[in-house]
């Protein structure tokens, strides 16, 4: 992470009054600075709160103007992914790509609960390329339970679409700021969340599998979702500690849905500050910093050569008994 810190100045000393210096848009960059700690399960529920500000509302509040662009130029327009060109105060035009879940049952059905189909990811890829071509910064808003898991999605190559979206973001020659505003559901979220700065709202979650899914597989009971949520470390404060997100955007005390306007204002401040800062880094440096950012995520233990104990293997007779 050193390269990223050096280039982007992520690590800033905290001033004597305990606040971050101006310039990083009011971000929380140290999890010990969080005032009220919720349990992971409370975060899961807040992140899925129906009245929580969703992407379209956030886009309307953060940007001065938004022209939506439709379609993947291949199959159809997926309403679970919303994208277009928007005007960001003090920066100018940017490309925005977001996942939209509904605030009502009807909207949720129309937008398949924010679960994109492959064509949704292909629309996103098209807009990423557009951002690159016209040198516009890319801002993404992540809010999805995951990619749509139905058979049509499989037939149209859900996995390929996600993989290509991730790979495109890895090499995209323009600054990317990704904000997880609600639920970050696995690969379906990562397809919009590879960036130079990945931010999360204070009560957002981001996980490799839903707590319900993990409970069904590892505990063999969907009712253990709360235990799974604790174990998966999917709350924003844990993600910050693990280096998966770079900063948290504070929410009102009762959660984002209690004061949407204040939440959206905080998102705007953070996005403006980050897009402005990344815009001043040369593209080549930005790309190598982005590579290094992901290159160093993960924990591996590598013993020095010559210090290893003899490898433990199964005795031969046990292998025979197992019939291998």
């Amino acid at each position, binding site marked *: 992470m050193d390269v990223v810190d050096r280039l982007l100045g992520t690590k800033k000393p905290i001033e004597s009054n305990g606040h971050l210096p101006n310039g990083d848009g009011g971000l929380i960059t140290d999890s010990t600075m969080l005032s009220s700690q919720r349990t992971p399960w409370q975060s899961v529920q807040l992140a899925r709160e129906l009245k929580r500000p969703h992407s379209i509302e956030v886009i309307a509040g953060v940007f001065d103007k938004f022209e939506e662009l439709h379609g993947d130029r291949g199959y159809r327009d997926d309403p679970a992914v919303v994208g277009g060109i928007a005007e960001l105060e003090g920066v100018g035009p940017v490309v925005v790509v977001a996942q939209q879940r509904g605030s009502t049952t009807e909207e949720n059905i129309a937008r398949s609960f924010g679960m994109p189909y492959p064509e949704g990811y292909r629309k996103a890829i098209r807009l990423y390329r557009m951002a690159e071509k016209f040198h516009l910064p890319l801002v993404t808003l992540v809010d999805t339970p995951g990619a749509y898991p139905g*058979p049509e999605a499989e037939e149209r*190559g859900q996995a390929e679409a996600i993989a290509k979206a991730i790979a495109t973001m890895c090499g995209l020659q323009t600054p990317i700021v990704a904000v997880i505003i609600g639920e970050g559901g696995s690969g379906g979220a990562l397809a919009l969340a590879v960036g130079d700065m990945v931010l999360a709202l204070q009560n957002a979650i981001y996980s490799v599998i839903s707590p319900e899914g993990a409970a069904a597989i590892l505990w063999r009971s969907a009712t253990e979702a709360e235990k799974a949520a604790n174990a998966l470390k999917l709350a924003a404060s844990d993600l910050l500690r693990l280096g998966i997100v770079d900063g948290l955007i504070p929410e009102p005390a009762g959660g984002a849905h209690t004061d949407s306007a204040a939440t959206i204002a905080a998102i705007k401040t953070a996005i403006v500050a980050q897009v402005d800062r990344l815009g001043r880094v040369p593209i080549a440096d930005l790309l190598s910093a982005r590579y290094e950012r992901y290159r160093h995520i993960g924990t*591996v233990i590598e013993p020095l050569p010559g210090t*290893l104990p003899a490898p433990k293997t199964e005795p031969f007779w046990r292998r025979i008994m197992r019939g291998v």
Partner: protein
Amino acid sequence: MPFGRQRKEFPSHLWTQCPSCGEMLFNKQLARNHNVCTKCEHHFRLGARERIELLIDKGSFTEHDVDLTSGDPLGFTDQKPYPQRVQQSQVKSGEKDAAICGTASIDENQVELAVMDFDFMGGSMGSVVGEKLTRAGERALANRTPLIIVSSSGGARMQEGTLSLMQMAKILGALHRLDEAGLPYIAVQTDPTTGGVLASFASLGDLILAEPNALIGFSGARVTSETIGEKLPKGFQRAEFVLEHGFIDQVVPRAQLRDRIAYFLNAFRPSARDLRWSL
């Protein structure tokens, strides 16, 4: 009950029944045929070490990053603590984690070869698999050789949480550099290739080959059938289905896999005029 007569005639350490045609196969013969049924060509899973032997020029494999092992970054415990699960898998499989990487030659083409091992926690991708595959990609870039990844995995490893998810971006970052450098990457999908592994490196090869009848799908079949509330058609998420829908290049029987890969490597090899690889 005929007093375990069936078992006496076909003790399981000597015989295996083919789930496809019901033929009883002598284990030694099955192994000699690279775990393919001699009667109906049903492809059983093949271990990672056997797979390497199948693909490479004899004795050309130099393994790298042998001793990378997984930490427990989340302090994860489900019904067992994660470190205990890892240790049990290490003892059972004799491997340190779910991928084996090294430099080898295939028909005298030097390649970086990475093979995933389904026997190790379902071939799941955590930090170690991510690190090993990324290093394999970086070595291929540094030596200007092709990269081959044989996947066999249930997806990302839940016990390392979101860190596992990030491995997808990490590996794809390395593959992107390989792509920009004009180096070939061949993805081989074997039974099963699902979830986060399919939604990253397994789906993006210059060439994507798959073994017959391999399970290849993004979502688990149970989740998918629950989503629509009905049973899935036969052959759904199998290699032939994926081929038909246009997401892989070929379905290659195991017996021909090595020769097919060798052919493509030779086809992609730069001629004397074309110095792309050696620059």
